[in-house]
């Protein structure tokens, strides 16, 4: 059963990723992005990290869906994303670089002795179960990673301020 769920989720993720890359309409690509994020949350839940799956669903997939609803007319007006100058087509070299990256990564994965290889052997510790997981997560976040959290929140704040400045009327933008 574990294998069926894994391969089904992996197929959905790869299909959504490929659709995101190759679909021409931006609206369709954005819908594929939502599908990718939802299937990623499913995969994270399969990895026994249900809290992170919920966080992914509620923040990332939710925000993409919300942005998509707000930007629906905008995405419809942006036209075709794949039409570009044929003399500047970089698909061939980009494909070579991507395939090389995949082959090198696969070689590293295949030749590394990971030790624990069976998903059935994964046993959750007390810290990873239920409410204890959330407590451990929160404690880790606000103690060991407090500085990184502040930096991340600052980044989001700067991004929001920049977005507001960019979308403000011309006389207010500068």
């Amino acid at each position, binding site marked *: 059963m574990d294998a069926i769920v*894994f391969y089904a989720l992996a197929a959905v993720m790869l299909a959504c990723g490929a659709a995101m890359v190759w679909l021409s309409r931006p609206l369709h690509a954005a819908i594929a992005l939502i599908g990718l994020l939802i299937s990623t949350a499913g995969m994270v839940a399969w990895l026994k990290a249900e809290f992170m799956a919920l966080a992914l669903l509620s*923040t990332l997939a939710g925000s993409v869906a919300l942005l998509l609803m707000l930007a629906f007319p905008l995405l419809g007006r942006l036209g075709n994303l794949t039409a570009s100058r044929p003399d500047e087509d970089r698909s061939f070299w980009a494909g070579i670089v991507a395939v090389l990256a995949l082959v090198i990564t696969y070689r590293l994965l295949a030749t590394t002795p990971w030790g624990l290889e069976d998903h059935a052997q994964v046993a959750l510790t007390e810290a990873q179960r239920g409410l204890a997981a959330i407590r451990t997560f929160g404690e880790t976040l606000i103690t060991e990673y407090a500085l990184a959290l502040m930096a991340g929140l600052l980044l989001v704040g700067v991004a929001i301020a920049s977005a507001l400045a960019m979308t403000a009327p011309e006389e207010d933008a500068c």
Partner: protein
Amino acid sequence: MLIFPLQGASGFALPIIQSPLGLPHVLTLAAALFALGLFAALAHRSFLRILMGLQLMLVAAMLNLVAFTTYLHPEGLHGHVITLLLVLVALAQLGLGLALAGRLMRTSRGPTSDAPVPGAEAAEAPALQASENDPLNVDRYDDLRW
């Protein structure tokens, strides 16, 4: 599948797909997603498509972090915390992407653009010939024209 043709080559002696389901499978999936995102970011000139490629690479990184935490360091949740920080980065990227799209829509000529501002007709022609150095000039991106 993709992995079978690689079995004969030296260095690919361990066929991941035939091993028990576990960490290498998740990492292979993440590598495939990362390669897709890399292709999208390199091949396309549309900023929306590049942002989506970066998003794909971020998702692959998140998957790797969660898998490493689950399989190799189940005693701590450090990978999950770093994943949450990556989610923050992705959110900032999404917000900026949407703002850029809105800005492009405003500075570009479109058949369904908003009602003209009074007195804007005279300034319309110079505004449409925006500088080539302006990253928000829609004329630099052929694929955003209509």
